[in-house]
């Protein structure tokens, strides 16, 4: 059983060299960047908008007890049943309990990254429920028995031919590779399932405290149908998704659309406050909201990294991250990938086991620069590394840095290091590029420059 760290290295090695994968991702990202930049430019002041969004989320998260209580009070007033899940297990138990109570057989889902986080689908399927992902991208990866590749675009890594092959293999029939035709195949499958499903399970983008509503953003309409047709509706949502007021959505919905998909607004932004109300003739008879902690309160307690809970899951940081673009979403081996995943996962799932995600970054800062709510992402990567080194220092690294310090701070020792460096460089030249080469990590793919015949400091001394 490989550790997550070893698996990451294996997968990263494979994907980094996969030129077909690199091309697919670069093409997809190029299209995204064009429309994203148009949308950002349409704002009168994008940077100011980021500040307003950051302030709003800061207020929400730093008064989470108040806003969460307000949200629950208001949504319960309209007949919604609110459940509390401290752990992954509790989340699954609550939802399976509802399915059991309702004698459900068929469950239809709209996109919910929290459900990936608690491994809900797997448990539901093993218990004997038929589970269908209605979002097209999620449906495709579900058929392929893969995890979503990206938090907004689950099937980004696939070409139309890949998808055609999957549909042929898993659904039968002979669709062409035309994207429209393939989409209509999924639409046809889903039509039946919406009508058959006993329970609809959704995620949530925001939980509005002031009016007690769950806000769901989507383009396809599958969440709206999941929320309209089955008799029981369940929303699984992280406690940190709270927003103070309805009017805050006027800022967040356009920013989410701009950074997530390069749209003015996503096609459907819908607010759900309860089950079918008196006078309404459709909609679920029962509405359950399951609030998930699952270590979010632990991140909340880390005042340094608390702002990582501000995340609105737009995916923008993934899109600009050169590590993500080269190794792909699956390599992270966990629900949340890209920079936000690298920041959160060690704190949600264990520092020791997942620190490598924070290590695997050149700290370029593109993520921090792009984040619409101004999360200090690359600083958090540094903090995770510091915390990891404190918790479990690496003997060799600590030793190397301890030895280096006096060399770098004493002119005499540095001068000696320079001379030894030349000798070392000459010796290294003999084994360069081979497994004996101590610089093999570098020289496997790159040439090394030689130590200069006269270093700067040696030259500087001659001027005196």
């Amino acid at each position, binding site marked *: 059983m490989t550790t997550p760290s070893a698996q990451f290295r294996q997968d990263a090695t494979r994907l980094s060299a996969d030129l077909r994968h690199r091309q697919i991702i670069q093409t*997809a990202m190029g299209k995204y960047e064009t429309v994203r930049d148009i949308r950002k430019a*349409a*704002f*009168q002041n994008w940077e100011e908008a980021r500040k307003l969004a950051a302030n*709003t989320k*800061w*207020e929400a998260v*730093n*008064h989470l*007890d108040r806003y*969460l*209580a307000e949200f629950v009070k208001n949504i319960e007033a*309209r007949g919604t049943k609110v459940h*509390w*899940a*401290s752990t992954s297990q509790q989340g699954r138990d609550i939802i399976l309990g509802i399915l059991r109570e309702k004698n459900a057989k068929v469950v239809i889902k709209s996109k919910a990254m929290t459900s990936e986080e608690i491994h809900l689908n797997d448990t539901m399927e093993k218990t004997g429920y038929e589970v269908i992902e209605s979002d*097209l991208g999620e449906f495709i990866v579900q058929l392929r028995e893969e995890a979503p590749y990206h938090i907004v675009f689950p*099937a980004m890594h696939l*070409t*139309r031919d890949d998808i055609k092959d999957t549909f042929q293999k898993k659904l039968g029939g002979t669709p062409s590779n035309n*994207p429209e035709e393939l*989409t209509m195949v*999924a639409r046809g499958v889903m*039509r039946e399932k919406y009508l058959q499903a006993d329970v609809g399970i959704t995620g949530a983008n925001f939980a509005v405290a002031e*009016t007690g*509503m769950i806000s769901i953003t989507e*383009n396809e*309409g*599958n969440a*709206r*149908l999941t*929320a*309209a047709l089955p008799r029981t509706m369940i929303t699984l949502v992280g*406690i940190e998704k709270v927003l103070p*007021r*309805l*009017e*805050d*959505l*006027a800022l967040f919905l*356009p920013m989410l659309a701009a950074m997530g998909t390069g*749209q*003015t*607004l996503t096609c*459907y*932004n819908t*607010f759900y*406050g309860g089950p079918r*109300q008196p006078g*309404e*003739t*459709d*909609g679920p008879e029962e509405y359950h909201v399951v*609030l998930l902690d699952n270590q979010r309160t632990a991140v909340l*307690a880390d*005042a*340094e990294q*608390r*702002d990582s809970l501000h995340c609105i899951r737009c995916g923008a940081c993934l899109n600009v991250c050169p590590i993500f673009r080269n190794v792909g979403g699956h390599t992270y081996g966990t629900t949340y990938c890209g920079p936000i995943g690298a920041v959160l996962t060690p704190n949600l799932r264990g520092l020791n086991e997942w620190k490598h995600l924070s290590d695997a970054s050149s700290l370029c800062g593109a993520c921090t620069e792009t984040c619409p709510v101004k999360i200090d992402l690359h*600083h958090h990567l540094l903090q995770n590394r510091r915390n990891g080194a404190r918790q479990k220092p690496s003997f060799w690294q600590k030793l190397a840095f301890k030895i280096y310090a006096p060399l770098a701070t004493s002119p005499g020792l540095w001068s000696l290091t320079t001379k030894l460096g030349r000798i070392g460089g000459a010796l290294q030249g003999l084994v360069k590029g081979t497994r004996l080469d101590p610089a093999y990590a570098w020289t496997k793919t790159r040439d090394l420059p030689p130590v200069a015949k006269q270093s700067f400091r040696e030259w500087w001394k001659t001027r005196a």
Partner: protein
Amino acid sequence: MVEDPRMSERENIFARIREALSVPAPRPGHAHDGHAAASDVSLPKPEDHRRVMPLVGASVAEQIALFQKNAADLRAAFQLVKDAAALGAALKDLAASEGWKRIAAHHGELTDGACKAIGLPALFTDAAFDHQELGRCDAGISECDALVAQTGSVVLTSRSAGGRSLSVLPPHHVVLARRSQLVPDLPAALALLKSKYGTNFPSMMSIITGPSRTGDIERILVLGAHGPKRLTVLCLED
């Protein structure tokens, strides 16, 4: 007394939250400058949102034009009609050109007139109805709460638009609106919902921006992923 497990987990979570928040976090933008901001972090007001979001023209004419442009970009059809008769005629044309056989709607000032004009069998969602039947309708006709110029959106609720399914299950969603329902931007739209429904909100409120779509396959735009493939907004000049 039987302990409600839900209450105790709720208390656990709140206890952890309060404990966590007893340590203050640096204010936005001040994580590394060694001092917290002098004043509290305040929530933005609508005028703050308006200062930063895309510009919307002040006049109704500009706003109509903006809505029209947005609708075109979204591949939603938008038509201004001068009176109820013109509205009826436009719908008859639509029904004929698309070969509708059966429509769905809810009762309302505009929709009742519309359904009469179209003259096809109609399923009304005001009383209990069968979803399979609704799915067999060629078009769902509804009213709305607002049109939003800034984004080209239609705002509707389960109370103003005949429920949750009418506007999303049939393959063509037709919205009947009045020009007086046009609002400039999202802050105005959300304020309208609050003032109209107060504390008795419908169970669903939706901001619809174009026909259903997906880009999940190679980021190629495909319309009609699950929701309506076509969205038509007919706007009565009042």
